[in-house]
């Protein structure tokens, strides 16, 4: 009997292990200690990204003989998993193009910004973004690109529904959505699925004086203004003024429908035109206006988003020289503005700012930047909070109680801090 049992356990183990125990993890090593070869992990924004970096690196290597940059392109959907693997297996790249930095800074993995770029480059960053790049009062990362959000609306649908002015307030949004619904289209496209629930929610909450933290910087996710915001969005959903199931709809779905002229209003960014509207329906007659406010008397804010370049400490600082050379090379005005123009993003440096303002579409976003409010990315707990928001915030406009959902996220935030 005993032998049978041991046999059975052994057989069970082998079968179970064979299938469940397979770990994943592939990482290219290539640890160069001469300090002249660096590894740069860049995010794929679209099809133009890789050709841009390839050309830039070729140019850099030609002008700095002996230096070499190994480029690795990573898709945004893979990025978080990859970055964790890099850190855990101690194979961090020298430079990482990412959207977070504060937990690396807290764990002592990053150079200070002043160590890896020249003073001239450092002083070229726009102060708003420098503030977002600080951890404990010290700048640890380099603002790379930025983006802002505005309200997009379909002018043809507005005309059909008999609406003359772009929406300014929350009440306008609801009233306009009702009119648009009568024409058979969807009034407002509300993406609260996991792709970017945190951005959509914050775009609304900030214009009701809500947000992630209170004035002292403490987490205030379950504050009354936020509950109020979710109740408003829930009402839009329950009144049938949004697309079905906002809790599982991603931004790209909403913008594909908007591009096809089936949605009246949706919040988008500078990338929305080149990424969604032009490829699907270049003749779409749309307008862009500020984000709607709860109180007609208050000033509209916009959601600011910033991606960064993180410079990792490696080989006792031997890589610093090469990293600095490459970063200073990239942050030259022409290189930065070429990247921004290709990808449809907003600048983080003063010198590249002027180049974009000549395009009337982009100018609206550049002009909105000074009113930007940012997610608290300089708080190391933010990525856990954003993760919790992505997973569960959407359920509050479906069948869960908004207050309860926010309470849970607040708990996650306090636990992670």
């Amino acid at each position, binding site marked *: 009997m005993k032998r049978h049992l041991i046999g*059975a356990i052994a057989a*069970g183990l082998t079968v179970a292990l064979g299938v469940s*125990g397979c770990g994943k993890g592939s990482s290219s090593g290539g640890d160069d200690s001469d300090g002249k070869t660096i590894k740069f992990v860049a995010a794929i924004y679209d099809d133009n990204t890789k050709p841009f970096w390839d050309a830039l690196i070729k140019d850099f290597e030609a002008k700095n003989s002996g230096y070499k940059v190994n480029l690795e392109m990573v898709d945004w959907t893979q990025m978080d998993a990859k970055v964790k693997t890099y850190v855990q297996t101690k194979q961090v790249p020298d430079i990482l193009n990412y959207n977070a930095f504060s937990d690396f800074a807290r764990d002592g993995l990053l150079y200070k910004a002043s160590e890896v770029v020249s003073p001239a480059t450092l002083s070229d960053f726009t102060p708003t973004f420098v503030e977002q790049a600080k951890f404990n009062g010290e700048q640890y990362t380099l603002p790379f690109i930025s983006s802002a959000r505005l309200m997009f609306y379909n002018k043809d649908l507005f005309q059909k529904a008999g609406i003359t002015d772009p929406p300014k307030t929350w009440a306008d949004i609801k009233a306009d959505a009702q009119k648009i619904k009568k024409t058979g289209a969807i009034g407002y496209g509300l993406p609260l699925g*996991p792709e970017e629930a945190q951005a959509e929610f914050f775009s609304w909450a900030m214009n009701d004086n809500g947000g992630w933290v209170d004035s002292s910087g403490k987490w205030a996710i379950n504050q009354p203004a936020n509950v109020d915001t979710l109740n408003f969005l829930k009402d839009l959903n329950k009144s049938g003024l949004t697309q*079905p199931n906002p809790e*599982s709809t991603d931004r790209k779905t909403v913008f594909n429908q908007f591009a096809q002229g089936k949605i009246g209003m949706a919040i988008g960014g500078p990338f929305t035109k080149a990424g969604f509207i032009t490829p699907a329906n270049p003749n779409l007659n749309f307008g862009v206006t500020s984000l709607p406010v709860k109180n007609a008397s208050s000033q509209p804010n916009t959601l600011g988003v910033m991606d960064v370049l993180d410079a990792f400490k490696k080989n006792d600082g031997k890589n610093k020289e090469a990293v600095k050379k490459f970063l200073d090379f990239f942050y030259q005005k022409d290189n930065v503005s070429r990247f921004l123009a290709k990808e449809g993003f907003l600048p983080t440096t003063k010198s590249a700012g002027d180049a974009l303002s000549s395009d009337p579409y982009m100018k609206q976003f550049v002009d909105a930047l000074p009113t930007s409010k940012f997610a608290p990315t300089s708080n190391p707990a933010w990525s856990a909070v954003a993760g919790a928001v992505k997973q569960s915030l959407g*359920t509050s406009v479906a069948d869960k109680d908004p207050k309860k959902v926010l309470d849970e996220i607040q708990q996650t935030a306090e636990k992670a801090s």
Partner: protein
Amino acid sequence: MKRDAGFRPASRPSLLRRIGRALVPLLWLGPSIVLIAVVVLWPVIEMVRTSLLKISSSGVTLGNRGSANYTDLFDEDALVPVVLRTLLWVAGIVVVTMVLSLAIGQLLNARFPGRRVVRWAVIVPWAASVLMTALIWKWMLDNYSGIVNRVLLDLHVIDKPVNWLGHPHQAMIWMMWVAVFVSLPFTSFVILAGLQSIPGDVYEAARVDGAGAFRTYFGITLPLLRPAVLIASIINVINVFNSFPIIWAMTAGGPGHATDTTTTFMYKLAFYDQHVGESAAMAVVNFVLILVMVLVYLRATRWREEVR
């Protein structure tokens, strides 16, 4: 067995030689032992070790955390529903797959013109990547442009588009169907192999004794298929338990945790909640669950008497 002259039992071989002889089998067993140790045991040890560590959100290991990761895991409100859903997911898929495969296996075993083509056709879902199959189904079920809605609208079964993957219950049923769909080829071919190993004279004897088709199937075919059914269902249980791509591609476990199984929940703990240690604890729990399920199943079916 014939022995060499030097190994006559009368003269006892030296200790060294005896050890040497005892080690000889290692030459043959060695590579597979090393293989098992490296690709099977080592990752499991790593997994258990990680579940006891404190790992920061950036991925840096900050030291030992004892059982705190497990406490965090068992404090999750979502855990119990997720585990129950996983069990339902596994049971539902495996039972439906086995029943359908028994029928398909029978069909593939029958002689009819074009059998070769049908056999190939059954293999196709197996050859296609699971992720691809899941994505294709996701688009077929799309609220706005999916073909499923189009067909049902044209047939007047529904009067407005249904967002199939937006509702947890419907989404779960559709995903289980996709999982059945991708499990069918393997399972039906195992059944087919089992059917072909049943000797023809047993059936002949049954016919002589006057057994009808029904009696023959339940009296002879099914009992003799037991080993094949056993193997196929164990492998399916493990596969389905660990199935990640279908759920991840179709609903990502959402809305909330409403369509999560332990595998997607584990992923979310690590990459959404930034809690690698707790995720590893979930992995250990998942592993133990599979182990227990397989053992219970083996005990219940008394496999040792069947698979020799």
